[in-house]
C-alpha cells in the first residue's frame, strides 16, 4: 500500500461538484479545502504507483478537475516488508 497526501484543483465554481464525484472513490479522503483557489486537500490510498497514477488519470478525465499533485508519501510498511525479506534471505 502507498499513501499520498495530495492537492486536487477544481475548475472555478465546480468545487462542490468535485467533492460529490470524489465520494465515489473510497481510496480518496477529503481533509480540507481552499475555496478561494478551488483546491481540496486529499489523501489517496492505493495498492501501488501504477494504480495511483491510473486513478489520477481517471479523475483528470472529469471536466471538473484541473490538476492533481502530490506533496508527500508514506511507505513505511513496504520498508518493513523489504527489510524483513532481507533478513529472510540473509538467513538463507
Amino acid at each position, binding site marked *: 500500500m502507498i499513501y499520498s*497526501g495530495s492537492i486536487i484543483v477544481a475548475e472555478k465554481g465546480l468545487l462542490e461538484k468535485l467533492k460529490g464525484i470524489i465520494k465515489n472513490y473510497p481510496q480518496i479522503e477529503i481533509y480540507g479545502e*481552499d475555496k478561494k483557489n478551488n483546491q481540496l486537500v486529499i489523501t489517496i490510498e492505493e495498492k*501501488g504507483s501504477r494504480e495511483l497514477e491510473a486513478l489520477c488519470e481517471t479523475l483528470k478525465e472529469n471536466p471538473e478537475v484541473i*490538476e492533481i499533485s502530490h506533496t*508527500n508519501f508514506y511507505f513505511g510498511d513496504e520498508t518493513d516488508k523489504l527489510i524483513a525479506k532481507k533478513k529472510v534471505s540473509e538467513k538463507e
Partner: protein
Amino acid sequence: MNLNRRDFIKLSLATGAAATIGVSISKPLEGGQLVDKWVKGTCRFCGTGCGVYVGTKKNKIVAIKGNPDAKTNFGFLCVKGSLGYKSMYHPDRLTDPMIRQKNGKFKKVSWDKALKHVSKKFKQLQKDHGKDSVAFYGSGQCTTEESYTFNKLWKGGFGSNNVEGNPRLCMASAVGGYISTFGADEPAGSYADIEHSRCIFITGSNMSECHPILFRRVMRHKMKNPDVKIIVCEPRRTVTAKIADLWLPVDPGTDLAVFHSMANEIIKNKWADSTFVNTNTRITDGKKTYDLAKYAEHVSQFTPEVAEKLSRCPAANIKKAAEWFAKSGASLSFWTMGLNQRTRGVWANNLVHNLHLLTGNIGKPGADSFSITGQPNACGGVRETGSLCHLLPGTRPVKSKAVRDQVEDAGKIKRGTIDPKPGFHTMKMFAALGGEKDPKKPIKGMITSTTNPAQSLPNLHKYLKGMEDSFLVVIDMFPTKTTQLADVVLPAAFIYEKGGVYGCSERRSQLTEKAVEPPGKAKADIWIAAQLAKYMGFSKLIPWNMDDAMKANEMAWTDYITVTKDTEHTLWGATYDILKKAKAGIQWPCPYPGHPGTYKRYVRGMDPMFEHPTIKDHIPKDATVYFYGDKKKQGKANIFLRPYKGAEEEPDEKYPFFLTTGRVIEQWHTGTMTMRVPEIARSQPNAFLEIHPEDAKQYGINPGDIVEVKSRRGASKYPAHLVKTAMPGILFIPWFDQSYDRLVNFVTIDAFDKGSKQPEFKIAAVKIKRLSGPKDVAEKYIISDINSKFKS
C-alpha cells in the same frame, strides 16, 4: 481523538499537504508522530533538483515529503521521486567489499584488504604502463564532494587527466553550446522564468516523463495564462507534445533545418531585435565575423518549405512557431537529450541560442535558453568541479597554464603536477581500455562510481571486452551489468546514508544531510576516494578520510569553493554552514557569505559578477547586459552560422527505420534502483518497442508480438507496442531494461560530436523482423546474483 494507524498515516499526510498550500484541515493532527525526524535533502532521480524531507523512524526511511520552501518544486513531488528511495532497503544491497577470485567468483573481504588490493594494483599499473594507465569514470549522481575528491586525486595526485563521467553521454553538447555561444557554461536564467514566460519552446525533451515537476510548473503557468503559447518540437507526440498549442514533428536529427528556418522567418518578417543583436552579439562561423545580412543570406536557404522537405515538419507550423517565439515578449526554451545526444549536438544547441539572441530573448524575466540536465548532479558535480578529461574546477580548461597554476596553489597541489594535456574522453577512454598484455590498449585499470557503463555505453559490443580484460573496480549499491565484468566491487552508501551537495540544472546547490546509517559495510564514495588516496600516498592532498561522512563532505566542499572562489561559478558565499541552513539551496554566482545567490546572470543589478573585482573593470559602465565569458573580451555572445547536417546514420533500403531511445516516467537510467521498487517494476516490467500501426501492418506485427530490432552493430528483441505517438518510420525503445536480450545499446551508434565528444544515442538506422507472437517478458529483470554472467 482515537485514531487507528491507517487513519493516523493519512491524517499526517493530509496535514503536510495542507501546509503546502497554506490551509488548515478539518481534523487537526494531535500528538503522535509519523516519523522520528524529518531530514532535509534533494531528490536524486532527475536533474530538476526537487527539495525534499525524508522521514526516518528507528534509523529507517519511511516517508518523504516535498519541501514547501524549495524554489524548484514548492513542496510537490512526482511518483518516481517519491518511491525510488525504497530501493535502499532491497535485499540485493551490496554490503561488503568483494574481490573476484581465480575461479571467477567474488569473495567478501575486509575494507583494508580491498583497498590494499586496489591500491597495489593501481600502483603497479602506473609503474609499468605510466600514470595515465588508470582511469576514473564517475557520474552525474555522485555528490559534488565525491566528484571533486576523485578529480583531485587523479589530476592533482597522479598527474593524470584520465577522469571522465557519464555526463559526457548526456550533457557535453550543452556545455559545448553554452561555452561556444556565451563563453561560459550553464544557463543564464532559472526555473523561475517559467512563470514569467509568454512562449515556451520545448525541443528534444519529453519533459512530462523526464522532469515531471518542471512540466507541472509549465502546465500550471499555461492553465493560469491560457494565452501563453507552448510549442513542442519532438519526433514523438509524447504527453509533453499533447499539451502544446503547436507540435513541430521532425525526423530525428533534422531539427537543425527547423531552427534555421525559424531564424529565416524571424529575419524576413523583421521580427529580429536589431538593437540587441548589434549591442550584444557577434555573428560568426567560428573563424570570421559577419554582419546580419550575411546571416540572413545563410538562413534564407531554409525556407519553411525546404525545412519541411528535410524534416517532415509542416511549413505552416514552422512559420507559426517563429512568429510566436519572436513576438511573445518573453520566450523560454527547454531541451535535454534530444538535442545533446547527437553528432551535431553542439550545433543544435547553438541554433537554439541563436533564436534567443536574434530576438533578444535572454537577460530578461521569462526569457532564457535553458538546457535541463538529466541527472541530479551533472551540473554541480561534474561540469562545475571540472571532472572531465579536459577541465579543471570552475569548468575551466586544463590546457590553460594560468588556470592550472591557480588550481594547484589554491588546492595545495605541487606546482607542475597537473598535466596540461587533456586525457581521453569517454568513448576514447573505453576504446583504450583493455588487458595488460594488449599493446593497443593504453588504459589498463579503471574505477567507476555510481554508474553502469556496461549497460549505458552506445554500441556496447565494442566495449565489453575492454572492461572484462582490464582491472575494473566498481563502486555501486547493487549488482549491475558492470559488476558482472568487474574484478573488485565496493559497496556504496545511498545519498541519505552519507549526505552531500547536488547542483541541479538551474545552478542551484542544495545540501542533503545524512539521515540514516548505510547497511553492512557499505561506505560513502567520498570515504572510498579518500581512503584510496591514503593507501596510494596522497593523504596530505586529500585529508578528509575520516569515518564521519558529513565532516569529510564539509572539508571537500570547503576545498572546492576555495579553488573556485574567483571564478564566475563562485560558491564562496555558500559555506557548508550556510547550505545547511538554506531552505532552498543557493544559486551561483554567490561571491560572499550573505549573498542570496543569483537568479539571472549577465544582467546588471541581478548578476553579482558585474561588481566582482576580477571582472568589473572590463564591463562598460553603461552595459546592462554583458556576456563576460566572451573570450574576445567584448561582452558579446555568438550567433553562429552553422551548416545543415543530418544524423550520422540515416535510414536506407537495408535499415529503413530511425531508432530513438529514451526514458519512461517510472524508471531511472539502467533500472538498477527503480526496478527494485515493486510498484515501479509492476508499471514498467520490461522494455518495449514503440512502432506506428502503419509500419507494424507492413511487417505483420500485432500488439505484443516479439520483434527483433537490428542495426549494423547489433540486435535486441522486444514486445511491440503499437502507438501513434511517433510518426511512421520512427521507432522508440526505452533503455532501462537490464536483460541481455533487451539491451538497446547493442543497437545504438557510438559516433560522437566532434566538439563535445557526446555520442548519438538518439539516432540509429535499424531494420525490424517479427520473431514470434506475444510472449510474456514482464520479468522485472534485475541482477541479484553478484556472480552471475554478463550474458545471463
